[in-house]
């Protein structure tokens, strides 16, 4: 079953004719993702990589029945692209763009909530259901189909966890990068709800990092509502307070956000917390025994 994306995904690429859009559309097509449309204002009527291009998202949805969009639009225009997809009724919007002003995302998030679309990201690697659909920029070849779900605020650290799983003989149901920004479309909790209801997911890896309190909120949800094993790693145990560690949202502020607080909250909720990022794979194997 998996969650969010699968063989029925009909993908629309916003910013398909740009450099990033072109490169990753090729990669997604190679993986077997069903890319049905592209949108670049002013380039409607053309075909790019064999995919029809439209001027607007609503036209693309009307003509192709696209149900998912992925955004490779530069930061000043990306929040607008999110709102355009939401307004056109796209059910799942994946925003890859890094560097969107927070104020723009606050506004776009409100729009998404209003229309009932689901947003993943921004500043994320996207979503993959191995063997079915890759809606993102992650390297498809490291993944294997299987029964472990992954939700992560990071990109390459997720690939590392996937690599460890595969080395331990385990595949993934769906892996989602939720993004490293302060305002993101879907939180750990939102996606844990989906994994709880997914019969093809036996356990979930939750990869968090310093900044904010999304991991504590996830811990509260897990304690009450999540019946499957959860294995977690929180990046930034050695990060100094007050410094932004690469991701716009990865900062320990006066009000909190340290790795220790998050690890404590997760442990109390019954989550297996890995102190070392090198043992994620083996801890999943243990949890499933």
């Amino acid at each position, binding site marked *: 079953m998996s969650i969010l994306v699968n063989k029925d995904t009909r993908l629309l690429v916003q910013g398909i004719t740009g450099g990033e859009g072109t490169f990753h559309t090729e990669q997604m097509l190679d993986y077997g993702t069903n890319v049905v449309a592209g949108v670049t204002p002013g380039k409607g009527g053309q075909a790019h990589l064999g995919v029809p291009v439209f001027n607007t998202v609503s036209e693309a949805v009307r003509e192709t029945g696209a149900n998912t969009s992925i955004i490779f639009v530069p930061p000043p225009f990306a929040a607008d692209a999110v709102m355009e997809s939401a307004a056109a009724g796209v059910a799942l919007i994946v925003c890859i763009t890094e560097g969107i002003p927070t104020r723009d995302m606050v506004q776009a998030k409100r729009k998404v909530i209003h229309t009932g679309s689901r947003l993943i990201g921004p500043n994320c690697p996207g979503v993959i259901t191995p063997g079915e659909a890759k809606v993102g920029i992650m390297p498809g070849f490291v993944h294997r189909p299987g029964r472990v779900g992954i939700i992560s605020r990071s990109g390459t650290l997720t690939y590392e966890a996937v690599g460890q799983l595969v080395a331990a003989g385990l595949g993934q149901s769906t892996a989602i990068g939720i993004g490293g920004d302060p305002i993101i479309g879907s939180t750990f909790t939102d996606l844990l709800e989906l994994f709880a209801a997914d019969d093809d997911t036996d356990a979930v890896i939750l990869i968090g990092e310093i900044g904010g309190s999304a991991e504590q909120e996830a811990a509260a949800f897990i304690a009450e509502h999540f019946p499957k094993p959860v294995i977690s790693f929180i990046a930034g145990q050695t*990060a100094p307070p007050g410094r932004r560690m690469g991701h716009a949202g990865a900062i320990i502020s006066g*009000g909190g956000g340290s790795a220790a607080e998050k690890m404590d909250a997760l442990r109390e909720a019954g989550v297996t917390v890995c102190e070392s990022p090198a043992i994620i794979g083996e801890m999943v194997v243990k949890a499933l025994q």
Partner: protein
Amino acid sequence: MKVHEFQAKEVLSRYGVTVPDNRVASTPEEAEAAAIELGGGTVVVKAQIHAGGRGKGGGVKVVSNPAEAKAAAEEMLGKPLITHQTGPEGQLVRIVIVEAGMSIASELYAGIVLDRAAEKPAFMASSEGGMEIEVVAENSPEKIIKHWFDTGSGLQPYQARDLAYAIGLEGKQASSAAKFFIQLAKAYVETDASLAEINPLVVTTDGEVMALDAKINFDDNALYRHPDIAEYHDPHEEDPLEVEAQKFDLNYIKLDGNIACMVNGAGLAMATMDLIKYAGGEPANFLDVGGAADVETVSNGFRILMSDENVKVVLINIFGGIVRCDRVALGVVEAMSNVQVDVPVVVRLEGTNAEQASQILNDSDFEFLVAADFKDAAEKAVAALGITPDGEGA
């Protein structure tokens, strides 16, 4: 991005937020002239550095005449100011402001931050001015009054009045404070601030409400639409290596350890630091070479790592996806040909073209400690701390 107090006050006064009259001075003579211009009476001389805790560190002096203002500026300028936020070496003071003195009736607090869980800004006010708000939040959270507001419609008048009354203001002062709060919220939204803090917010004995101190941080991602604010960037307040790294779009943060690391991706970079610590070492830095690491990026990153004199070992951890390991390997070899590298280099390359990468490293003229996996990489790096350049370990 952080800015100086006088810059924050410039921004605020553009929005009609009342701030004391002040002048910027970079020499004692300028400070004296400023004090004369401000009427020749009592003024406050304040060192301008980004770190907080200036008052306790001796960076804020109340003086009663221009000669004393000159002397106070002389004491501060050109010397490091040490506060609990600067670290033991302190931060060099290059400018001071001279600010009109005033008679203060009460010290309050006003601040705005993004509430990530609520997904909107939270306006906080407190009667406990002059103290660190984190301390107030810890000891007496009931003394912090909060109102969340919409970035589209701003802080509403009823919210502003409620905040003013709740921190004990009455009559005309309450309505001045309410106006102050609305304008502060407007400044926060329109300048894309990520934090605005007025601590203390003061009521003078004349009943005026003003920002005695001001701290504003701005969203780096929005600076492109605020060129005036982007100009406030002061590289003197940052570590020179970090300034150098910014020129190459490298995300580098200097730390105190001796194992340098170069990683692709922020999460993996943090995890690598954590694993170094877990293996018994101390990371020298955070360095994310990003998703498009090529020969040039890697080469520049390497040069910056090697400029840190504390570095005893370099650990390269790349999980190639879009980034190709063979290009990273070429970058490492090129960097080592150009930069004097006299410490062991541990390399872990996984993912796209990892085998070609190993071949490139093996065929080069340099010795590498090649790690089998993530854990092995950190352990090899820590073990290598004991190895000398011409030792046996490589």
